[in-house]
């Protein structure tokens, strides 16, 4: 038979032994136990070998077919780094159009959040202690400025409690003595409240330069303004003008690293453990 022929080809020793032994019916000799054991061992070995070969073949076949199936099912690895596949994203295609045409094509603006309303101060309401914003001009429109006052300690009423920790500048370095709703630049020009960044930039030109290049103050929105606008804060959104030093903070979020943190006792999320 063809199949058994193959098996015999695979196991020549055993088949030879059988061909020799089968016709014989001679009486046992002293060597026979050894031969018996040997032949039995060979027979077992053959069966095991065949089984192993079959197993290997089966595993190989399964593995190969699985690999192919898996390759087909897992496109990200196979395709994405070998091809410049076009995206399914309409936005990205739009961007590609931009790219192919003009690298510096139309862009969305950088939108800076300017301070709104009138320059003012937060005071506690005399009746219910709530914080109320009062425009500077509310009082200062009717009062004559005293140019000799340099700091809050010089004042006899109002603002004594205001802590100013901003170098050695005086109140009127920034506040305009004739219009307390505005600022005064170093050259005496009046500056609207909403343009406060220009005031700060007189001294902090390095920060302003960084800011203009997107390297100070942070931002949200788009790094590439061909896709959308960029939103930025102004100076006094982050820095209190009278105490501009950035405040201390307390980190509240801590990842738990497996080898740094003590082991968690309850592991509700890991049913496998």
């Amino acid at each position: 038979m063809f199949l058994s022929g193959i098996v015999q080809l695979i196991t020549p020793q055993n088949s030879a032994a059988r061909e020799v032994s089968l016709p014989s019916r001679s009486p046992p000799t002293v060597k026979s136990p050894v031969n018996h054991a040997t032949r039995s061992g060979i027979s077992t070995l053959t069966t095991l070998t065949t089984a192993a070969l079959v197993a290997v073949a089966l595993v190989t076949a399964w593995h190969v077919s699985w690999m192919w199936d898996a390759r087909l099912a897992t496109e990200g690895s196979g395709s994405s780094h070998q091809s410049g596949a076009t995206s399914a994203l309409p936005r990205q295609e739009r961007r590609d159009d931009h790219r192919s045409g003009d690298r510096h094509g139309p862009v969305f603006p950088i939108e800076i959040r300017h301070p709104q309303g009138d320059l003012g101060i937060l005071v506690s309401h005399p009746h219910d202690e709530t914080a109320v914003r009062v425009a500077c001009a509310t009082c200062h429109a009717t009062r004559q400025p005293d140019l000799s006052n340099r700091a809050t300690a010089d004042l006899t009423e109002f603002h004594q409690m205001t802590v100013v920790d901003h170098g050695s500048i005086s109140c009127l370095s920034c506040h305009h003595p004739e219009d307390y709703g505005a600022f005064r630049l170093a050259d005496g020009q009046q500056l609207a409240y909403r343009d406060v960044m220009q005031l700060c930039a007189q001294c902090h030109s390095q920060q302003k330069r960084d800011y203009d290049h997107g390297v100070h103050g942070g931002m949200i929105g788009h790094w590439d303004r061909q896709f959308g606008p960029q939103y930025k804060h102004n100076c006094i959104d982050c820095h209190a003008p009278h105490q501009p030093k950035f405040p201390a903070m307390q980190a509240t979020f801590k990842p738990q690293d497996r080898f740094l943190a003590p082991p968690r006792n309850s592991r509700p999320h890991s049913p496998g453990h």
Partner: protein
Amino acid sequence: MTNPRRSEENDQVGSEATEGRSRSTQLPIVNQSGSSRRTALKIAGAALGLVAFGRAVAPMWSIPENISIAEFLQRHYKELTDEDKQEIFQRLASETKTRYGADVTIVDHRPIPGVKFAYAINLSKCNGNGKCMEACHRENNHHRGTNQSYIRVLEMTKGSLDMEHGTSTYDHPTPQPDKYYMPVQCQQCDNPPCVTVCPVEATWKEEDGIVVVDYNWCIGCRYCEAACPYHARRFNWEAVEIPAAEINPEQGYLSNRIRPQGTMEKCHFCLHRTRQGRLPACLEACPTGARVFGDINDPESSINYVLKNKRVFVLKEELGTRPSFFYFFD
């Protein structure tokens, strides 16, 4: 085995061989049961082997003529069409729906032609508040049980740049006067050791510089975790658990889709955002403005401003990993 006749016959092997007689003896009916079982086993085994072999080589029958070996092998690493991809993304999305109860969309964001991303952190500004870690945690659908994040903010002693002596477990108001704070995440190396060691090519570097992981292709051997000198890779020890309401539904196949248990993950510069022109989540969350992100191929970009005007260094420069991630001081 227990057949007496069989053992008797077996016993004769030796003597017969030595004496060389009885060739003409009539064949006895011996070993009948044993032989038939053995034969049957052999036949069965051979048949199984043939079937398996046939199955293994079956694709060879479909080889067209006049095809080169390279072409032939290529066929089996099939590049998926967009339709194939959409099918897979929909399957993954429906699995997310089943397991987590959230409606998500999964997209394979491709690099923007001509763009290479780079990141920089101002160590003069960073005060260790850790908002970036939290933003990463939320944006990238990390496991809620471990507060996982791609970023670690290390508290470092002033005067040292050795990140191995930094600690991420500090618990006090920051900044401390004798410390500075250094966030460490994937440096998106141009010569990435993690990619080199991956035995299954489940991680690679894309054209815009981002080193990505195919979570479905990763086998979780963690070689890359060991190879990364920045401790930037994370292993999903546990199955990810997130309340449905907290799942970020805008997901990328190679970025923030929910990772299967037992796979590696890492910072991908929020590619599902940045490849659409948006800023990474960690940058938007930073209250100190210490983070700078942009296209290093654009000479006008803010990242190039940093490289040209600040005192810049890279972590563990001596290793030759060539990071796309920079640290600078004002």
